[in-house]
């Protein structure tokens, strides 16, 4: 139930921050000084920061945690999530703190906002949101580590659950750094602005959380989701499951972005320490490896599936492929950006790279809602509407990110986040704005699909396994009964349901 609440609230916040992002994009078309909708000296920047902070910490990460709180216990054969009361507390605290965060902008607070008290409220609310998300993360990780069903060793854990464990571990190492920074921002801002100075400098202290390499730790569940969905779509066992797990783990490790939080150099997003530059570049190039490895493994899986004439397309597969390609594009953009000689740091390529990866993560989680809809909602979703929504979201995200990428590569080379928010080549700014509108339409289609499924009259019992899945969640009823499993199953591989089907087929073969 708590997972479902997280999903609903995070979708609402995502819709709101997407609209704000579109306002920023439209406002940016004609460049600085030509504010169309966001009038006022600080309104544009406040809208921009609410879009970035809200999209990631009120939207994407809570959506991932919501899906994980429902799906992960089912995948590992647990009767419940670990620390259910703590998970419930984390949601309600997140809801209240998230509302406070939005309200702080309403009273002219937030980074760059003129109100002292509003900015203090922003810092406190942001810190509490982070605490809530970290609590939920501990619940998810502990579920996988401690509550797996007998026989499910860590190397047999499904890829989505594994990706949530590794991503969660990285969040536990990096988000406390952000939390400590925000606490210090509050104390400094409230008691005299001695350390970080005026409101304008606040965003620079937290912006590392929305850029590479930290975004890789946020987007790692995309790889796990794609791995789970595409193996079932191909109708064959996943190639080299342990190698895939290793690739996902490596991707998360390379998403340790806390070291890019340079908190002593004011007003600079660009890294100045040459050693950090080398580490940054090495990590950026190394991050290409995991998606490529997974691409190769998934390619091999599909090749074997096609050879047996099996693959069955679905909306979830389109979500998974689209999200995976977006994240891979972001990783490649990040690698290019890390080459110091190209001077791409501090340009719109930053924004493009973040858009590629974070939009990919959002699309993957919406795809996860589609894939696991019978478990999360107790209803199956309309596949055609799902296909339409997926196509619109992927196309819109690609247009948004690619427009920014070219704008940054060949256009303005402004330094500082505010200039980046204003910069860009006009034609490409139009493309970016159009991409945002396409995404919003796609989002509306997805929401319509979800609402339609919920209000639709239930004529028959929903299937427990609509996709022919391989992992334990497909054993449960739709929606799962209390305590999830009637009988705790014994697991002997990473695809227990496929094992069972193959054993049954072998028994049915006439001698």
């Amino acid at each position, binding site marked *: 139930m708590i997972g479902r609440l997280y999903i609903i609230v995070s979708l609402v916040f995502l819709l709101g921050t997407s609209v704000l992002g579109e306002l920023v994009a439209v406002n940016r078309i004609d460049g600085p000084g030509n504010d169309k909708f966001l009038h006022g000296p600080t309104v544009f920047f406040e809208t921009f920061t609410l879009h970035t902070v809200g999209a990631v910490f009120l939207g994407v990460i809570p959506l991932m945690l919501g899906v994980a709180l429902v799906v992960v216990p089912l995948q590992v054969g647990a009767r419940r999530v670990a620390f259910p009361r703590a998970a419930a507390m984390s949601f309600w605290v997140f809801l209240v703190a998230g509302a406070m965060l939005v309200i702080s902008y309403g009273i002219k607070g937030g980074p760059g906002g003129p109100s002292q008290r509003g900015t203090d409220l922003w810092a406190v609310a942001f810190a509490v949101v982070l605490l809530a998300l970290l609590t939920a993360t501990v619940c998810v990780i*502990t579920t996988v580590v401690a509550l797996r069903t007998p026989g499910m060793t860590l190397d047999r854990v499904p890829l989505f659950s594994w990706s949530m464990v590794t991503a969660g571990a990285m969040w*536990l190492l*990096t988000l406390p750094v952000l939390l*400590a*920074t925000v606490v210090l921002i509050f*104390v400094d801002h409230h008691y005299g602005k001695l*350390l970080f100075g005026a409101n304008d400098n606040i965003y620079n202290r937290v912006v590392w959380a929305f850029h590479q390499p930290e975004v890789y730790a946020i987007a790692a569940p995309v790889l796990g989701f794609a791995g789970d969905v595409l193996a079932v779509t191909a109708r064959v066992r996943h190639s080299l499951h342990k190698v895939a797990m290793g690739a996902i783990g490596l991707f998360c490790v390379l998403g340790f972005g806390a070291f890019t939080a340079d908190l002593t150099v004011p007003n600079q997003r660009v890294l100045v320490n040459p050693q950090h530059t080398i580490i940054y570049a090495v990590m950026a190039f190394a991050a290409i490896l995991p998606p490529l490895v997974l691409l190769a493994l998934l390619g091999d899986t599909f090749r074997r599936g096609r050879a047996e004439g099996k693959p069955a397309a679905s909306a979830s597969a389109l979500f998974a492929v689209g999200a995976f390609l977006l994240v891979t594009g972001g990783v490649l953009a990040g690698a290019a950006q890390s080459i110091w000689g190209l001077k791409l740091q501090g340009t719109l390529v930053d924004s493009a790279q973040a858009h590629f990866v974070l939009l990919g993560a959002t699309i993957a989680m919406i795809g996860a809602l589609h894939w696991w809809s019978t478990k999360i909602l107790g209803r199956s979703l309309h596949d055609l509407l799902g296909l339409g929504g997926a196509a619109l979201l992927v196309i819109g995200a690609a247009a948004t990110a690619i427009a920014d990428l070219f704008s940054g590569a060949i256009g303005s080379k402004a330094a500082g986040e505010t200039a980046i928010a204003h910069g860009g080549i006009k034609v490409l700014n139009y493309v970016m704005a159009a991409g945002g509108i396409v995404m919003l339409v796609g989002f509306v289609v997805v929401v319509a699909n979800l609402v339609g499924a919920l209000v639709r009259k239930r004529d028959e019992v929903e299937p427990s396994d609509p996709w022919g899945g391989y992992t334990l969640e497909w054993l449960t009823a739709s929606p799962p009964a209390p305590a999830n499993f009637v009988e705790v199953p014994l697991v002997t591989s990473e695809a227990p349901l496929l094992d069972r089907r193959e054993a049954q087929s072998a028994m049915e073969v006439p001698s």
Partner: protein
Amino acid sequence: MSLAHAHEGPITIDDIAADDDLLDADVLLPGPIPERPRVLLIGAGLASAGIVMAFATLIGIYIAARQSAVGSGHEWLKSGAIPLTGPNIALFTLLLSIVTMQWAVYSTANSDRQNTWLAVGVTVMLGAAFVNATTFIYTESGLSVHASTVGLLVFTITGAHLVVVAAAIVFLLVAAFRTLGTQDPAPGREAMAAAAVFWDTACAVFFVIWYAIYIIK
């Protein structure tokens, strides 16, 4: 009526087919009780890791700010600004509390209620003494959160640590009441061990704070 010998793990069809005793048995003895998953201990460990990272950030910022100030020729902390007596007493208080915490865990494992209550009580008292020592350091130091960067950082770091110690005390008390409220405290060893992990983390963090702030200054 015959009894089968105790069998390790769940009994399968193959086990019964292979073992005549099992085949003949009228009553099968239950298998061993499955080991409880260490949920609380793992959760406490993860939370502790997060706390360590948060304080690593704060102390890192403190050290960087100090280096920047000293490097540009400014005075960071006046000589004698924070007398070492208070921080040393606080440190030794926490070191003692690590011992009493382990005493509590050991007593719980041995179902020794009296010693568990005593150990928990002494640990909580030592935690309260630490809080008292820290507030004494605040009054003795004369630092202000308004007036200087060093004051701001010292108050933020030590204040955050006080919050963690308070949380550790609450965690310990809850674990103790849950454990000692049952008929046999021994199964509650995991809760006490989890509280011990959290407590020890708070102590380890203070050791780093003591060295970085009070010794190096």
